[in-house]
């Protein structure tokens, strides 16, 4: 007889709001002391602000007095002090398994110490469990090696077997074969370039995507916003996509079956929003910059870390049963431009660009020499093999379409998409560039 497992992997996912609030208050106070005593960057920021850990006795104190910092502060500290950790806790034997790095899309990759069981592994295991994966199941994993290397074991400790694939479009035939052979129940991370590669594989081979994916109860999508076309395409393959996003550098926020924002694992960190310009607090439900305080990573005590993401927070209970807060992600504050005073974010252009056959891969960059501009300038990659008309015709149509939708003067530059792909790792390119 099959064992009946609980609906949630960890009871904390359904803990009462009041319990979570009290737990977070205690965890924050503990992390503040750890950060101040052991992380030179945190001490420097707090000393500069004239705040001591002993000044923080409650969540109210924390929100009123604790100073914030961002990635530039970390990079500056790293460069100024030649400190690999960027001013966090010096690496200690036994406390970490390896040192991973961030994607490096916008600069030198940032080192991230990997503890024996990373919060990210836990968050993704919860997500797979939520989708319906249970011990004994196989999980498909497409991943770069830079984040966790070959050390991740939590899924196996839970009784799952991971089928490992490279983050490379050429893996699609093997994903089809592996999915049929092992019949996995969950997959991560199926990013846009790989969905496009699977689409191409299916078109060229005649393989049946519904049969390939019929065992999957959920597939995790990430890297950038999900476009309407890819959402419809994967739905036609019988796939339910669950979006994911980074949460406080070391964990992840994941959608549930309600598909109404990303759940922040609130036992991993506390979330709040501030005005991206003034830093003043913003109430839940309003759009502001996401600020996180992580308590599970003692080596990297992110205390009021400004993520640069524009979000709105909802702490009400979710229809999925989880009590953890959700946030809607609107984009990166640094990606936002104002054209003739009108705010535009890259995700607003995706549906327009992918609607053309030759630009369906959605490879584009907004050219942003400054935050405020007179003209919206976009560099768009096209697939020469799908271009069936003079390039100028496509260029003019895209200009008119985007200009009409945004209501601002628009200039389009078309380039071979192969050129844009050289600008970043295979899963994403910088969406905003200075030139």
């Amino acid at each position, binding site marked *: 007889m099959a064992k009946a497992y609980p609906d949630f992997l960890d009871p904390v996912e359904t803990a009462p709001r009041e319990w979570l609030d009290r737990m977070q208050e205690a965890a924050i106070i503990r992390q503040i002391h750890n950060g101040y005593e052991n992380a030179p960057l945190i001490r420097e920021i707090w000393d500069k602000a004239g705040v001591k850990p002993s000044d923080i006795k409650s969540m109210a104190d924390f929100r009123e007095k604790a100073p914030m910092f961002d990635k530039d502060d970390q990079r500056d500290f790293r460069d100024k002090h030649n400190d690999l950790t960027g001013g966090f806790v010096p690496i200690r034997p036994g406390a970490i398994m390896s040192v991973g790095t961030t994607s*490096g899309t916008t600069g030198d990759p940032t*080192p991230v110490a990997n503890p024996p069981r990373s919060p990210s592994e836990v968050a993704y295991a919860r997500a797979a469990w939520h989708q319906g994966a249970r011990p004994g199941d196989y999980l498909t994993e497409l991943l770069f090696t830079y984040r966790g*290397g070959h050390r991740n*074991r939590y899924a196996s400790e839970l009784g799952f077997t991971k089928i490992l694939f490279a983050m490379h479009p050429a893996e699609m035939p093997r994903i089809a074969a592996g999915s049929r052979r092992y019949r996995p129940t969950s997959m991560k991370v199926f990013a846009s370039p790989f969905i496009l590669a699977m689409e191409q594989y299916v078109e060229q081979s005649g393989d049946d995507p519904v049969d390939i994916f019929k065992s999957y109860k959920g597939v995790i999508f990430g890297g950038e916003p999900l476009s309407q076309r890819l959402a419809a395409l994967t739905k036609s393959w019988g796939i339910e996509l669950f979006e994911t996003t980074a949460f406080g550098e070391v964990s992840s926020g994941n959608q549930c079956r309600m598909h109404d924002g990303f759940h922040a694992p609130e036992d991993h960190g506390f979330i709040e929003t501030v005005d991206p310009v003034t830093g003043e607090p913003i109430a839940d439900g309003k759009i502001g910059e996401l600020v996180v305080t992580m308590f599970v990573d003692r080596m990297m005590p992110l205390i009021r870390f400004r993520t640069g993401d524009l979000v709105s927070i909802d702490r009400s209970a979710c229809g999925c049963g989880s009590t953890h807060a959700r946030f809607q992600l609107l984009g990166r504050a640094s990606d936002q431009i104002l054209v003739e005073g009108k705010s535009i974010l890259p995700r607003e252009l995706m549906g327009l660009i992918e609607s053309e056959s030759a630009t369906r891969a959605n490879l584009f960059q907004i050219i942003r020499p400054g935050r405020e501009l007179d003209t919206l300038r976009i560099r768009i990659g096209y697939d020469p093999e799908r271009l069936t008309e003079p390039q100028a015709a496509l260029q003019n149509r895209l200009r008119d379409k985007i200009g009409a939708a945004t209501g601002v003067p628009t200039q389009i530059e078309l380039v071979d998409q192969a050129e844009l792909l050289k600008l970043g790792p295979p899963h994403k390119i910088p969406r905003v560039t200075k030139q």
Partner: protein
Amino acid sequence: MTFTPNRPDLIGAYMIDGVQHFHAVTFPQIDRSGSNFSAVIATFGFKPEEFILSVSMLPESIYFSVFESALQKLGIYGTNADDSPFDAGRVESLSRQMDYAAACGVSAQVIAGLKQFGHDPAKVFAGRTIWARPDAVTQLAQLGGFDVRRFVPLGPAFALECSHGGVHVDDTEWQFSDDGGTIHVTSRMDHVEPVSALDTKVAGKLGTAPCGCGLSMATLDFA
């Protein structure tokens, strides 16, 4: 009473003649082999808390989870980059940021990627130990200025060169033979996906003399 049969912990892949084959392993197998290879790595005298870079792709976990398990047993910190020209910038960046003592799995495409990004491989690897894949050994050896050693995938197994020039294999875990001039592999231990006389199509022969490093692990000779 019934018992749960061996369950694989992960499914990676190995390549023979350009074709990738799924291969299942367990963590006990990985950790056993990691202990054995930690002795090979220890011949170089790396210190605890130094960094060693793995240059690999995720399906190669059947090799690199063994390698990283070995590093952990020695107190060495592992760090990672993909074996891809697109990720060669990370190989260079980590050389500056972490000053890794060694890198394992450097291939011809990574060297090409470094050049594409405007980096001189000789400068990036200067003073380090580099375990090169077979397609990169000659090219790297010609550059000079660093210690070139060999990392050789052999179907589900692999070979790793020690500081004395012996290219060692885990002959506790696997039995090796050189029938017809290529290396064949057979499972010796309780593998979740055993292989028998699998022809790796890698030209080589069994070593006959003990290695100067003093380890009892078998060695292979490659042309």
